[in-house]
């Protein structure tokens, strides 16, 4: 199913893993070299700057090639029809397949650009078909999210792309939400609970599977699904979201029924995320929780004016700084497996990378921890030391 050479993908993951250990000095450079020779990767994957350049240039080429085609077709009234967009998308998709299969491009900027162009053009063309025939806005979005879902899942499976998996996940949750509203009589009142269950289920599925060897090439995609389902899980019970939606879709104003439940959800869930994230050493939960505190704060502020904004900001700022000071002081030397030292790699989500590959190992559900410190760095990192100065 995957368009890229699977052996190379596996070797790439293996090389990444070994390179991390080599960088920390567990493996000698000579050994690294022999491993790289034994498990070669034939992809064309340039560095970030070249990737950006190739992305821009590919977009230029595709837009002018398609513009030229459209200009030629304009005389025959072809471009008026939805089929034209699908046709253009199809040409981009064919180009993508050729680049991936023939030239072995992998995350090179060329395949990224072609994937985005092909996906959006095909989805846009198909949406045009239904836009004319659908009765209402809800119907249209129902069909549209179904289109995006099918297309997104296909492109995710074929190209293991994180952006496409994000689109698919959002489309899936949106589709179920709209269907629920349409099919269930008291849809809007029960939708929050349905969405909570659905988002939690999606998260659980993604979480339990993202460490499995079977889905090892989709690990990054499953991480994206986890983040999105956690965000939707929060939004499903957020007071502001529910009230806005019920006003928009049913014209209901005034307080939401079961308001207390949703208030508790709005305020407490981010802290639950953070607590579980720290307790289970799960970076995704922890960071999502930290992000959602802002959401909770804005929601509360929207309904209750406790004090003027300036005093609020000052107070919160002081509280955060006190907390940071406390943490830095407490973790000056690592405690209970927590540290303030810089992780050895500046990865987006620290430990998204694979742990084990060529050997069928038993996988525990506990997420892997980021790369541990080498012995010399143990006594508190550069950051922890700062806590003692107490000057801030």
């Amino acid at each position: 199913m995957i368009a890229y050479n699977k052996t190379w993908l596996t070797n790439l993951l293996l090389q990444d893993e070994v390179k991390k250990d080599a960088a920390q000095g567990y493996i000698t450079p000579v050994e690294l070299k022999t491993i790289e020779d034994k498990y070669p990767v034939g992809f064309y994957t340039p560095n970030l700057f070249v990737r950006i350049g190739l992305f821009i240039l590919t977009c230029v080429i595709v837009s002018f090639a398609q513009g030229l085609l459209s200009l030629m077709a304009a005389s025959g009234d072809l471009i008026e029809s939805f089929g034209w967009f699908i046709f253009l998308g199809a040409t981009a998709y064919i180009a993508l397949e050729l680049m991936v299969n023939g030239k072995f491009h992998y995350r090179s900027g060329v395949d990224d650009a072609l994937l985005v162009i092909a996906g959006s053009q095909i989805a846009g063309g198909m949406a045009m078909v239904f836009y004319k025939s659908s009765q209402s806005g809800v119907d249209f979005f129902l069909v549209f999210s179904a289109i995006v879902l099918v297309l997104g899942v296909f492109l995710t499976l074929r190209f293991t792309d994180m952006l496409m998996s994000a689109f698919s996940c959002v489309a899936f949750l949106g589709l179920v939400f709209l269907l629920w509203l349409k099919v269930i009589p008291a849809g809007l009142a029960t939708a929050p609970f349905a969405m909570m269950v659905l988002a939690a289920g999606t998260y659980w599925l993604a979480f339990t599977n993202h460490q499995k060897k079977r889905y090892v090439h989709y690990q990054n995609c499953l991480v994206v699904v986890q983040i999105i389902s956690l965000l939707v899980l929060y939004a499903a019970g957020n007071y502001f979201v529910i009230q806005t939606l019920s006003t928009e879709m049913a014209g209901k104003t005034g307080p939401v029924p079961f308001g207390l439940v949703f208030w508790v959800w709005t305020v407490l869930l981010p802290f639950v995320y953070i607590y579980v994230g720290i307790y289970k050493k799960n970076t995704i939960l922890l960071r999502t929780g930290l992000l959602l505190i802002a959401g909770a704060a804005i929601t509360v502020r929207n309904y209750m004016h406790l004090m003027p904004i300036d005093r609020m900001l000052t107070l919160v700022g002081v509280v955060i700084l006190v907390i940071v000071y406390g943490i830095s002081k407490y973790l000056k030397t690592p405690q209970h497996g927590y540290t303030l030292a810089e992780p050895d790699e500046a990865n987006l989500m620290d430990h998204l990378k694979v742990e084990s590959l060529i050997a069928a190992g038993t996988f525990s559900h506990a997420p892997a921890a980021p790369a541990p410190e080498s012995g010399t760095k143990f006594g508190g990192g550069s950051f922890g030391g700062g806590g003692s100065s107490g000057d801030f």
Partner: protein
Amino acid sequence: MTDKLYETLHAEGLIGDESLAKIRLKQQQTPLFSLHWEVRTLLYIGVLLLTTGLGILIYENIDTIGHQFVLAFIALICGGSFFYCFKHKMPFSVGKVKAPNSFFDYILLLACISMLIFVGYLQYEYKVFGTNYGLATLIPMLVLFYVAYQFDHLGILSMAIANLAVWMGVSVTPKQLLLNSDFDSTTIIYTYLILGIVLLVAALITQRYVFKPHFKFSYQHYGLHVTYIALLAAYFHFYESGLALVAMAALAGLSYWMYTDSFKHKSFYFLLLVVLYSYIALSSLVIRVLVSKINEAGFELAALYFIGSGVGFIMLLINLNKKLKTA
């Protein structure tokens, strides 16, 4: 979890006994869970909220507090921060100097920002420098450059470069440069050009005399963008006159210089910039020819040009990348 991986690699004879033992030892340790970035982000947000809150608080109550008090308060923050920095500073060196602790950089930044606010406030409220704006921007600039070199702070170097641009009568941040600038004025184009060349020369000197060589990137980054944009602007401004040709020739020369330089120092970033800016310049020349000579089939030819040249530049970029890696 990785033990099986390494055992297989060991069995295949790819890693030695010693490395396997090291890996085994590592796996027995409980890995530490790093909260580094979370706590750093919190610190940043906390500082941001606190300063915003205090700022609004002062702004709302300016009538009761009075300007002198506010000025004194800012001066206190500024002085205190600088005092801390001078007390804890590392000895000066022409190479890289590591900050004594990770709060140091933030405090230095606070000191510089409050210094700028202080000067700005003085000028706005009391017109200390009168209409002598050159002096009002020159002093903070000199201080910033001094601080950047003394404490080895790249962020403050960027602030100093921006201040240099302000002093020369323009603003150098790329967004404002593209949005607000009136490119039709000749003086502005010349000012940009001089600024860009000064920065590029600064990069060259930094490199040649090995004086804070890691500052070279900042100088070259700003210098390159400013010079390229100024040359392109000059080209379009003097479109009809012979100066346009001069601007294009200068651009070609700059591209060649930066091209060799990026190869010398293996910089993918500057290589990408050279390729993209040269592509824009070349395209504007080609379009000019196409528009002037052929009227009917102009668009088709232009589209064909972009398709062909796009493919060509992709090949070029890929090849240059390969060359740079092996160079």
